[in-house]
């Protein structure tokens, strides 16, 4: 199959298509994890984006039933240097090609992915369109089709959040607000003896209080954190009710809800190798990250707890009075290092 990846600035790359046929638009972002493509593909935070893996060989170990972070594939397209024509792993039940095909995701291989990474690094993330077809593809027309797309104007959270509450595990009750949650968050909490109620993003604070949770978990998710005003309101109304822990988008939403602000990073942090320093302990953890926005100003009453060692950006904050803490990265890992799992312990201890 033929495939084209065209960027808003007119950059066009021709490659080989796999996955599903079709044409999809999204913000082109790159992830530097060398393993964990299936977890990334099923991470709802990638909604509205075309995901490019910087590691050139993708698909070697296929896909399986275990390593999924949601029931769907979220990026609108997938770009790699080389996709493995076969898979080799005891757990694999599918090839990456078939997996993407079944989920209707067009993908491109055989392109100079490193060039795109450097391009995005210099120019910033930008809208792109991927087209996979048996026919010749008209690249010029593709770029035209990008005109109407504005990633920052879409409420992706509403699109990916669970429509109905779902309960995982047994034990101490935790309300997990699903802004696009990775299953890993529920998994980590269940492992620590929690009964996790995963709730739709529009659930009101009153409804949540009716559940009488011992802790409130704010999940990761896609999109611009300034968009879901409903989430800001809910968080504001729940602040101080019981211990609250936010990760990634959840962390950014707390900032907005409590009077802080966020900004868009030039090309984001996406990968499994980002060093974050815990300012209290002085320790550095290698973290999984997947975010295009970051907190700019802390809300009043919040202290800075974690910073990114590379660029000094805010990675964590805490409000002792209200029992709220949050981090920009992913302690649930999957994919990525397990170095920050103790944050869940801390959350459960606070409950």
């Amino acid at each position: 199959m033929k495939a084209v990846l065209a960027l808003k600035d007119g950059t066009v790359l021709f490659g080989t298509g796999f996955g599903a046929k079709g044409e999809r638009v999204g913000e082109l972002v790159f992830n530097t994890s060398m393993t964990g493509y299936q977890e990334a593909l099923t991470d709802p935070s990638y909604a509205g984006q075309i995901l490019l893996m910087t590691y050139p060989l993708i698909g070697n170990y296929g896909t399986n039933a275990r390593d999924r972070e949601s029931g769907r594939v979220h990026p609108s397209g997938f770009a790699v240097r080389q996709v493995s024509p076969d898979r080799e792993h005891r757990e694999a039940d599918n090839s990456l090609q078939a997996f993407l095909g079944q989920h209707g995701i067009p993908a491109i291989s055989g392109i100079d992915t490193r060039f795109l990474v450097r391009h995005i690094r210099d120019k910033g993330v930008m809208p792109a369109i991927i087209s996979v077809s048996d026919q010749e593809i008209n690249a010029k027309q593709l770029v035209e089709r990008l005109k109407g797309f504005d990633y920052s104007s879409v409420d992706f959270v509403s699109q990916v959040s669970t429509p109905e509450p779902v309960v995982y595990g047994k034990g101490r009750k935790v309300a997990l607000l699903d802004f696009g949650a990775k299953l890993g968050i529920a998994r980590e909490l269940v492992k620590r003896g929690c009964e996790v109620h995963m709730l739709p993003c529009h659930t009101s604070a009153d409804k949540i209080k009716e559940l009488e949770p011992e802790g409130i978990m704010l999940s990761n998710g896609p999109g611009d954190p300034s968009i879901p005003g409903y989430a800001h309101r809910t968080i504001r109304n729940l602040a101080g009710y019981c211990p609250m822990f936010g990760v990634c988008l959840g962390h950014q939403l707390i900032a907005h809800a409590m009077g802080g602000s966020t900004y868009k990073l030039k090309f984001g942090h996406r990968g499994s190798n980002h060093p974050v320093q815990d300012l209290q302990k002085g320790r550095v953890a290698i973290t999984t990250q997947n975010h295009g926005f970051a907190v700019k100003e802390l809300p009043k009453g919040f202290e800075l707890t974690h910073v990114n060692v590379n660029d000094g950006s805010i990675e964590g904050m805490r409000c002792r009075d209200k029992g709220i803490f949050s981090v920009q990265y992913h302690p649930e890992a999957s994919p990525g290092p397990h170095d920050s799992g103790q944050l869940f312990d801390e959350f459960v201890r606070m409950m």
Partner: protein
Amino acid sequence: MKVLVIGSGPIVIGQSAEFDYSGAQACKALREEGVRVVLVNSNPATIQTDRDVADRIYIEPLTPEFLEKIIAKEKPDALLATAGGQTGLNIAMELFRKGVLKKHNVEFLGTDADSIETAESRESFNRLMERIGIPVLPGRVVKSLEQAKSFSDGNGFPLIVRPSFTLGGTGGGTAHDENELETILGQALRLSSTGEALVEKSALGWGEFEYEVVRDARGNAEIICNMENIDPMGVHTGESIVVAPSQTLSDRDHQLLRDASLRIVNAIGIKGSCNVQLAMNQQTGEYVVIEVNPRLSRSSALASKATGYPIARAATKIALGKSLPEIKNAITGTSAAFEPSLDYVVVKIPRWPFDKFPKTPRTIGTQMKSTGEVMAIGRTFQEALSKAIRSLEVKIPRDLDADRHLNPPTDQRLFAILESFRQGKGVELLHQKTGINRWFLRRMEEMAQLEKRLAGQKLSRELLLSAKRAGFSDSAIARLTGQEELEIRSVRKSFGIIPTYKIVDSCAGEFEAVTPYFYSTYEEENEAGEWKGKKVVVVGAGPIRIGQGIEFDYCCSHAAFALRDMGYRSIMINNNPETVSTDFDSSDRLYFEPLTFEDVMNVIENENPEGLIVQLGGQTGINLAQRLEEAGAKILGTPIEGIDKAEDRDRFSELAEKLGIPQPENGIAMSEAQALEVASRIGYPVVVRPSYVIAGRAMEIVRNESGLRSYIAEAVEVSNRKPVLIDRYIENAIECEVDAVSDGKNVFIGGIMEHIEPAGVHSGDANIVLPSIRLSDDEKKKIREFTEKLAHALGIVGLINIQYVVKGGTVYILEANPRASRTVPFVSKAIGLPLAKLAARAMLGEKISLEKPRQKCYAVKSIVFPFLKLLGTDIKLGPEMRSTGETMGLGESFEIAYYKALLAAGVGIEKERPAAFLSLRDQDKHCVPEFASLLKRLGFAIYGTMGTVGPVEGAVGVAKIGQGHPDVLDLIDSGTVNLVVNTPTRGGLAHTDGFRMRKASIQKGIPCITNITTAFELMKALDRLEEEFEVRTVEEWRG
């Protein structure tokens, strides 16, 4: 603050140039922090022993006694033990255990001695693993065969046997039954410094993975790189083809092993770098930890080059107390606290020495046999693999009998697999035979399929691009399509298929890299864009092999340094991950590429340099020079014409004659008949060898017609295109050699080195002394005169190495090498002048100002041999080079310098109860009385064969092997004798008594001297041992 850094000594199998690289980086890291560095190493061919790397440099034997003297003299505040490989670590631990460090108030930097002990001792390591819940293979530390047998009774075979505290798996092996257990265990117990060995259940066939961890004192820890061995468990990681990052692990698998590695390293308490080896059963997901190396290692060097992360630098800063976030990532300017992300694939392939040891079994296993390695980088696995294969500079066997190499594996297994696929065998079959993960096998199968397409289809742009993206060389494509390489090159260019260069930046492009460290691939964007300035390319030396070792990398690195000093931009091309030359800051631009015509020419076309330096990287660059020049490259220094005149025996002979320089009578033969005719004209004995050789491959001294016939039948192929050279062998002569630098006019002679052994031992294997001790002034004058004449006649600009033989006042010339030689670093250190730098300067047009070398001491170069690793090889020396590394001894007298060089090379003589066994060939027997009386004076008990020691009073004559007990093997095995002097007769047959005697002494680890002159000089040195050895820095010795 003053810190003592211990180097790793001579290059041996299992401990190669990587420790010069990591040691030099450590020294640099220390000095950046204002620390004064005292460096000790016995290996002169190292950058770390250069004046500008450390403050105080000692080239002294790496023994605890010498180290203690240096400590007493220098009074360092601390010791860095982890940069000198297993050798450096073992000595440091011994100094620690003996209380030497405490006595002199020397702090142990980095990982504590206790932690190192825990990591290195099997028993305590296994106990620790049990405590933290990390699975290990069932195993037991044993001190006797009985203990081992009781373990095997419970656990069955196969079992892995590994001696504690040795390097490269020396003396270990896989035992499949009780007999093998007895043999391997016996050897392991002898070699272990603690008399212990580990007997362990084998995880044969499991996937083998390595994690390189860096941890600071605060407990911050990170994985710099994970690596996957393509050869599954059962093959030593140093013998395995390795790929980075891992290719077959899912993120779940990877995190499991990552977590385990971090827990292990935390539990041990590493402060610096640590290598963790793990095995995973990829059918079940079970894993075990195999072992850890709590120091910088061969793997850490590979990981550094594979990722761009300078592990030695970070580990050293940590040892000084810095935390990871406080250390800067020199490549991106961000912090060193992160895990590198790769956006390419790295493949390492070992380089084995079997071309030099045709009689040694080629099987590979748990003990290292390779001398070096190559690394290649590509954007696909196939690209990296193909580039690595051609970086090896070996002849790729065609029509291999594939089945013979698959299992047990040999060094040719990779080629056998490719051949099997060409023959249409399937992945499943090969997986069954080799245990190699199917993913890798399928990629290899694809390569064979692509070869078929190339052979069968018209070469379209699309097909050619696929081949280039799979790493195929133009010459391979040419062979498959029946064309010439240059035709393919021009077709390729006409299609617009030219390589793009990408940066190794440790972060997959996420941050801007400031270090230009490139590899080639065929994609869109070329990151090695236009770069203005005067640029010079240095063609590197490739993998460490016998005959082309670290000395040449040393010279290439020096050229890069000299270029920088002169305001040129230096561009290095090389593929050896172990070396200083491929450190990202040794040159201004580094291209990690194979050293073939195509790959070098591509870099030249990308860079458009002023010129090329080819004469410092050994034979590799010299062999490429002509083609590169024909393609338009400018070779700096000695012109091609001069190179050819020196290399072509016929032309050389003619030139020598014209210049009036005597040569041993010689001739060239194109057939066996002609060879016999030439030899009878010259008169036996003769030296025979094929033309155009590296390090005397297949060179031999032949004493009669039948010997010549069998040499030609067995060793070489003779034809018009491959003539055989025949020289008269001058017996009992002094061999000497000269390293000189010429600017085209002035010839500067670095030194006239004299071989201690009589002529006929390969110069790379000879013990060498500088200044000479037996040559007359007149002979030296002649040598100087001939050297100058020849350098002028060849138009040498740069280095030349000339070998002479002197007998009875006549100086004969043997050969001239228009390039750096392996003695350049030795001479440079002895006289205190950097010959390679001078050569680089001369090549760029600078005149050499002639200082007279200053050297008030004697310097002796000794060598180490790989015989222990390559059992089944006879150790007798001859005109074929067999040593892997060298040592340097410095002293006020020749004897002291010689003894120190030997001691540094591991030839130590037992002082407590010395006993020697003598077995000399007839022509040496006249020396027996004098030698025996020397031995007696030194308190030696003398044993020997009847034929040798019969006339010696008080000597014990011993039965020949098989004619009663005790025989010599019994004496060696029981430890009765601790020195063997055996001068071999002709014939390399493996069943001779001499061969078995030599093999036994190697296995027992006692010195075995095969040359009577060497033995004499050693005893003379011992005779003077009463004098206290003094330690001095190199500069102090030079006076």
